């Protein structure tokens, strides 16, 4: 009896470990292949059947990225950084201002406007891409990183405003009033007293916006057609189509790694905020 009880207690634990480790292998295998393939020598990268371990580590594929396509990978990294950081900063700025306004400085119609902004959650930008294209065209913002930044900002704003409004609304009004009585203006009350408390919300919004913009493909594909202004995800289409027939999968996977690895690192560093923001946004 005792041994059976022992087995019943320890077996689930062992089974749990085995199950989790097996799933981990399934999850990590594609990522391993991405890195391994990108670090093979160009000759080994085209071997059939493929080798599991690179025989010889080489950064040739990464070096080749610098002169593949019209402009090298550095321009595309720059484009992605410009658009992602630009949209993140703009979203944080506008969302903090509006969140504070909606939470603390109510005016006639502010409730309706807040609801209107939240309603944009329901309509994805894929559905309005056609007129967006025409509008950007007439504002001469098509094929421009500024145009893409503004579009991204628009679609990240509702989430940001929602998160920031909730952060500010959860603060007692007395804190703010105390700051105002002490002679602070609205702005300094916001920046000195309220913003520090809202920092987790700011980080969540920033992370979310950055990841979404860095990875966005559909709008970038349509609104930017000039190769020198491509962001990284669209650049991958260039790497895939460049030498079709003699497609170099090593270079291709190096491009994928350049796109994916920064996200993985950023996530591992700041995952607490990322997951918190995700759950807050979902349970809106």
């Amino acid at each position, binding site marked *: 009896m005792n041994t059976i009880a022992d087995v019943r207690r320890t077996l689930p634990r062992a089974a749990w470990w085995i199950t989790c480790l097996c799933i981990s292998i399934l999850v990590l295998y594609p990522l391993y292949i991405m890195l391994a393939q990108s670090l093979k020598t160009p000759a080994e990268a085209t071997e059939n059947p493929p080798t599991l371990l690179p025989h010889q580590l080489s950064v040739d594929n990464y070096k080749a990225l610098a002169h593949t396509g019209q402009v090298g990978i550095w321009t595309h990294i720059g484009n992605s950084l410009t658009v992602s950081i630009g949209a993140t900063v703009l979203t944080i700025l506008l969302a903090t201002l509006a969140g504070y306004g909606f939470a603390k400085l109510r005016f006639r119609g502010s409730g309706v406007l807040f609801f209107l902004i939240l309603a944009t959650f329901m309509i994805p930008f894929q*559905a309005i*891409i*056609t007129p967006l294209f025409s*509008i950007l065209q007439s504002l001469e913002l098509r094929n421009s990183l500024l145009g893409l930044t503004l579009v991204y900002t628009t679609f990240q704003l509702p989430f940001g405003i929602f998160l920031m409004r909730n952060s500010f609304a959860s603060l007692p009004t007395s804190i703010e009033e105390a700051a105002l009585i002490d002679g602070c203006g609205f702005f300094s009350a916001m920046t000195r007293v309220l913003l520090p408390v809202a920092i987790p919300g700011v980080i969540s919004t920033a992370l979310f916006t950055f990841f979404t913009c860095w990875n966005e493909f559909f709008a970038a594909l349509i609104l930017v057609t000039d190769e020198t202004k491509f962001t990284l995800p669209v650049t991958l289409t260039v790497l895939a189509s460049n030498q079709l027939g003699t497609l170099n999968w090593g270079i291709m996977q190096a491009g*994928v790694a350049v796109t*994916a690895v920064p996200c993985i690192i950023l996530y591992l560093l700041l995952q607490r905020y990322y997951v918190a923001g995700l759950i807050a946004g979902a349970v809106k």
Partner: protein
Amino acid sequence: MTETTSPPTTAPGTPAPVPARSAGPRLSYRGRRQLMGVLLVSPALAVVTVFFIIPLIMTFWMSLNDWPLLGNHHFVGLANYRRAIHDTDWLHAIGFTLKYTVLITPVLLITALALAFLVNRSGRAARAFQSLFFLPVVIGFAAAAYLWLYLAQPGLGPLSDIAVRLGMGDRDTNWFATATSGLLLVSVMVVWKVTGMQMILLLSGLQAIPGELNEAARIDGAGRWKTFRHVTLPLLRPTLALVLVFSVAGSLLAFDQFYIMTGGGPSNGTITAVYQIYRTSFINFELGYGAALSAMLMVALAAVSALQMLLLRKSDHS
């Protein structure tokens, strides 16, 4: 839109607070606060108006016009919509999108639920596995699609190598040769990339259920399955509804994975609704017709959103 307030005493240009205070301190304080509120909200509103509200209205206006990329557009009434309901390409795209949605939604939900139960424990190991299973979520769809495109290449790809070693197939089997196998392959990629997201959401739902409830059920003599069926599942319903709607909305909007991995082929067998809109508006440059298709998609998504509210509200009252 921003002119909805009328500040009682202080006009926008009045700089000095001192005379205002003498006129009536409480009123002017409120007035200034309201004006400040309008000022803080207006930059965000301006951006949302130009890049969201106007395009939204324009979608419906464009859909009533014949609107080429260059040259003049002219009003055609509902002709675009009449064309759409007889357009076999569009109907195929809708059919394929629904097929994909029906295939992927239960697979994702069950996988994610199983993972959530698996890692719903305390301790460092469980937390590490949570982070690990979530890892593919942070990679973009484009990068993930290109990664899997390589994995599944006939001959070269590691997956065909594994298939050969397991005796499951030929090295040169082309998994992109038929629409069905292409769809299955894309689905495997999506499960790899998206399950972690749903797992985390379901996990937060599971952890919100008080532990005493499960204990009480156990003490009352309910087994594991009965506890799950009668205690956990009903309490998890709001989260399940949420995840379900996310999943359905996401699948109805699928584009990246098919554009990259199958290119819509073979013989247009894997064209989704958004893909067809893309082709109509930006390959054929029939912007008016593309807008009509977009409007139809928008109505479908609004229905999903409405369903979400219904499901969530119902569970609030139960």
